[in-house]
């Protein structure tokens, strides 16, 4: 019994002492050294805008939806590239949701107070819709195939000529007559899959090259100018030291460089 009381006292004292050394002195020491030696990195590798306020971090991807910007990979972090809630889709290879997408019923506040407009919206887009969207955006030919036969794209479009995404997802999920997409050329894997963090700053080089004509057209500049920006070493990192990891194009840095070019 005496031993046990002594061991408890020792345990408590040791816990407190190690807390001071390993959780107080040690992190503060690292903080001091890194602020001194690598203050840019230690503070988040922030990129400043013209007003000296941050426009992003070199390491964190951002959501770009306008056609004149290069688009990053699909993201499961919050509402898209939410750096305060990193994470992947965690959908497995045989998930229907992952391949075909899902819809959900929601209510939006109506014109009258207390009344709601109930409608179906896309819950998770899924690989098929992403492939279709990527083809559409980047002028890649594709076919829609239902029940083994090609179908007219207009079947799934509204009066404005835009796709009805809910109708598409419903048809993708129709077990009796499943709808599927067949692109004329190969789609880069990273373009239609979500990253692990939902904050992947990079896309593959072939993905960037496929997007280049669209970006050039939207910005009314030549494709060669855009491609020259892609190959800029600040934008595209090859394997580190020539061996480690893979090459990738930093989407945020590339888009900021293009904006800077336009501002000139």
């Amino acid at each position, binding site marked *: 019994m005496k031993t046990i009381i002594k*061991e*408890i006292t*020792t*345990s408590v*004292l040791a816990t407190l002492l*190690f807390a001071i*050394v390993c*959780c107080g002195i*040690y*992190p503060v*020491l690292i*903080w001091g050294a*890194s602020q001194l030696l690598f203050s840019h990195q230690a*503070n*988040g590798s*922030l990129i400043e805008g013209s007003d000296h306020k941050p*426009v992003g*971090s070199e390491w*964190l991807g951002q959501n770009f*939806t306008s056609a004149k910007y290069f688009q990053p990979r699909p993201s499961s*972090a919050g509402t*898209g590239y939410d*750096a*305060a*809630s*990193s*994470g*992947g889709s*965690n959908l*497995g*290879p*045989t*998930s229907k949701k992952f*391949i075909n997408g899902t819809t959900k019923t*929601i*209510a*939006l506040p109506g014109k009258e107070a207390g009344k709601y407009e109930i409608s179906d919206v896309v819950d998770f887009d899924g*690989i*098929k819709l992403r*492939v279709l969207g990527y083809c559409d955006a980047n002028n890649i030919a594709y076919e829609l195939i239902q029940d083994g036969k090609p179908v007219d794209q207009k079947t799934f479009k509204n009066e404005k000529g835009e796709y009805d995404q809910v109708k598409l997802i419903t048809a993708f999920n129709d077990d009796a007559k499943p709808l599927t*997409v*067949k692109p004329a050329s*190969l*789609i880069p*894997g990273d373009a*239609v*899959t*979500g*990253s*692990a*963090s939902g*904050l*992947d700053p*990079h*896309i593959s080089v072939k993905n960037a090259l496929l997007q280049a004509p669209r970006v050039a057209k939207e910005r009314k500049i030549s494709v060669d100018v855009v491609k020259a920006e892609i190959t800029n070493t600040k934008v595209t990192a090859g*394997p580190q030291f020539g*061996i*480690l*990891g*893979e090459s990738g194009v930093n989407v945020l840095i590339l888009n900021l460089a293009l904006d800077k070019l336009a501002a000139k």
Partner: protein
Amino acid sequence: MNTSGWIQLILFVGVLLAITKPLGLYLCKVLDADGKTFLDPVFKPLERLTYKLIGVDAKKEHDWKVYTISMLLFSLVGMLFTYAILRLQAALPFQSLFNPQKLPAVGEHLAFNTAASFTTNTNWQSYSGEGTMSYFSQMVALAIHNFTSAAVGIGIAAALVRGIARHSAKTIGNFWVDLTRVTYYLLLPICIVFAIVLVSQGMIQNFKPFDSATLKDPFTAQEQQKDGSSNPVFTTKQVQKTDEKNNPVTDAQGKPVMVAQSIPVMVDKKVDTQSIVQGPMASQVAIKMLGTNGGGYTNANAAQPFENPTPLSNFLQMLSIFAIPSALTFYLGRMVKNQKHGWAVWAAMFALFFGGVMVAWHYEAAGNPNLAALGVDPADGNMEGKEVRFGIFNSALFATITTDASCGAVNSMHDSFTPIGGLIPMLNIQLGEVVFGGVGAGLYGMLIYVIIAVFIAGLMVGRTPEYLGKKIEPYDMKMASFVILILAFSILGFSAWASVTKMGAPDPITQQLTDGTNNNGPHGFSEILYAYSSCTGNNGSAFAGLTANAPGYDTTLGFATLFGRFAMIVPILALAGSLARKKLVASSAGTFPVSGTLFTCLVVGTVLLVGALTFVPALVLGPVVEHFLMHGGKLF
């Protein structure tokens, strides 16, 4: 499986092999109470002061019982310490410095789960780091265990090795001396250098509140409306009732039966800023990797770009997982005065590691046929849940390493791996994480298999089994078997229980209890099996689709971590005590050699056989059947 991957693999193994001997020799000095190291001028005064303050006589060694009691009490106190800080997170002083995001206190079942998980070197996380834990909780409540649980593990391995090396001895070491020396001479110095290197690569280390960046291309997203007390708002709609099989229900007159269905009320939200995570990350990540803890600072762990910015930071993080476990095999050889035995154990571990990498890499590179059918380039492999800068090879390698060891940090989402690619991490954990393994835990786990292997060899030739001059007797075999059985009992027992009940949180719309899985079909079962494997194995990685933050999961998974740690360590220390007491018997022509190819193959065979007999039936129901269904194009 491209050339660049092969070059990186050879580089990794080469560097690991190169540091094994020097680090192993250093470990011999650290784990000797009188050992002299080049860091004595810095840490000797601190070491002496520590013994004085906590009231320990460093000259005195203890028997296995006292060693065990010290270890258990220290773990219990540490667990209560963490639980208290998490529960009081929002009430502690200096909130503006230590909790600038104003995060609330952690709930009781989550705090229990987290305290158990970090005390046991598991670092299973039912929460998302950046949204749940204040800087103080991360830095103190969690990080203290990153150091101490690693030091405890290494101490236990050293105690077992002493038991093997000594004969006719009563004592196996002093717990407090092992704990202190490992922390000061091994973990802290490496972490200081490692953390600063990580910062140079782009990892953050500061005490600022989150930054807000102005987006160049704002967009609109929908989010659920919140009422005054920040509860989500729902409205209802009359819909026809459906039965369990989703068929519409009608009453006796054939009229549809209507029920009210909850519908979430959404509002448009303009997203024009990105909040950028900040905090003391590098100091924590260094020990998280080196101590094979694995608890991420952020939810996405080592996939989050700050937490693993470059391929070099990735390489060093992988290396730091294996560094100490690999060096411990050298320590074993040196201590038992049979260096060939140490290398034979290393070789057995390497063989299992290499096999795992090959399978995981092959299947991840082969990709998902369901995507190839949609025109997605099959040459890109399975990129779902992987980062571009790491690609297929570094993701498969990291997944294998983190589960070979009991680390559990991830740089890709195991849940989105192909079925067989995801089977490898799960099987690695179920084999007991003996492939280099957790710091200390890997070696003592592997030595249990070694003892079983020499026992089997002894039975085959009809002699009393011997291990390094010690007779292996019924008591020793009982302890070794207990270790194997507790693993199977906890993983399979809890998984079976969770599969037939609903341990998840209630669905926000239907209010009915769920099983918490994110995937249907065999993959959903894999998520549950992985969770209990990971917690029992003290790994902490996950098929993270499982929403485990619910009372049922938090509690059972918390107990799984405690079983997996303490129900194993106690018999191992008992075994150490028993081996230390034994007399040496002279080796003869009939003694089974514990080095060489035959021995290595026997150990690898034992690990695979015991693992296969125990876990193959469960794995067949999960990843194996999913593999065949995936190739048949079946979706769930």
